[in-house]
């Protein structure tokens, strides 16, 4: 399994965490993901996920005029998004602890 496939499964939670930090727009979000090490994932991957997260009511979007001219969509986290983020953190903690303990046993 490539690292891209592994990352895709946890991308939702990572996006939620970044959106929870501050109101953010697509390009900024993609740039931040890259800066955190998600360099293998193409930038556009975030948009289908953002559409899905809006449908699930985890995030909401507001349109505002951008410095470059046209209106831009800014995303912010909703109350159910905050709950989902907390649940993701728990899942991730459990998963990473389990994986780490298996890998330590191998060493």
């Amino acid at each position, binding site marked *: 399994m490539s690292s891209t496939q592994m990352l895709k499964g946890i991308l939702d939670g990572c996006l939620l965490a970044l959106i929870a930090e501050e109101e953010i727009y697509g*390009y900024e979000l993609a740039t931040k993901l890259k800066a955190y090490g998600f360099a293998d994932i193409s*930038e556009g*991957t975030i*948009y*289908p996920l953002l*559409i899905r997260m809006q449908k699930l009511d985890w995030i909401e979007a507001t349109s505002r005029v951008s410095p*470059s001219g046209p209106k*831009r969509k800014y995303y912010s986290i909703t109350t159910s998004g905050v709950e989902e983020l907390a649940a993701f953190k728990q899942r991730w903690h459990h998963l990473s602890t389990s994986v780490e303990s298996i890998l330590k046993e191998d060493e």
Partner: protein
Amino acid sequence: MTLSTESTRFLEDLKVYLLASGKNELATNEIVNELEDHLIEAEADGKSVRAITGDSPADYIQSISKEMAFDPKEAFWIVLKVFLCASSFLYLQNLLNGTTTFSILLVGGFLLISAVYLTTLAFLFRQDALRDGARPRIMRYGIHGSIHFLLIIGLLIVNGLVDSQKITLSPSVSWMVGALLILWILVTAWKTKTWILPIAVSIFFVPQLLLLFVFNLSEITAVLVSYVLTSITIAVIFLRKSKQDQSKNTKL
């Protein structure tokens, strides 16, 4: 800042694919504008469209489409618009010939052919949009349109041979329906800022009226002359539009 040809074509393909898949127009415009905004910044930072879509723009377009819900209301209005557009010619032609009786076979057959036409047209649009930047295959649309034109001719012939139940409109009702169709054509053109349908209707019917009532020519001659004039006009409009698009793309 303007986008590269590759990015512009990707956005066009995305829009065509989503609309031809029955997605909501507003939601489609939102995602297209959002990606346009992203591409403008990405290109300014020296990135190509592949950095956004990955190796396959076609797969990327489909991944966006999967997340967007099918909008039956939107699809219904598109079907209604195209059906009214196609039936306006047939109905107004009948009205001009003084025919106010329509058989169930003709109306039902026309609805069926229109439904098949729209479904296959949406399929062609979706296929073209996934062809990764290649030019649309105009010839296929020509053949597709011609097949359906022949199907309508066939329906008209069968309708003349087979007897089926008929609906007869009174002259006042039939003229009222005709006036409503013309009003709908004008309002739609004004709303969409696309005047091709009113132009085509005028070129199809005004010469016919002149040939019939001023020059006293036969109905069949009037229809044939109008058909040729309309076909030439539409071809010229499409060629001009295609040349304008080409020169726009070359300048970018």
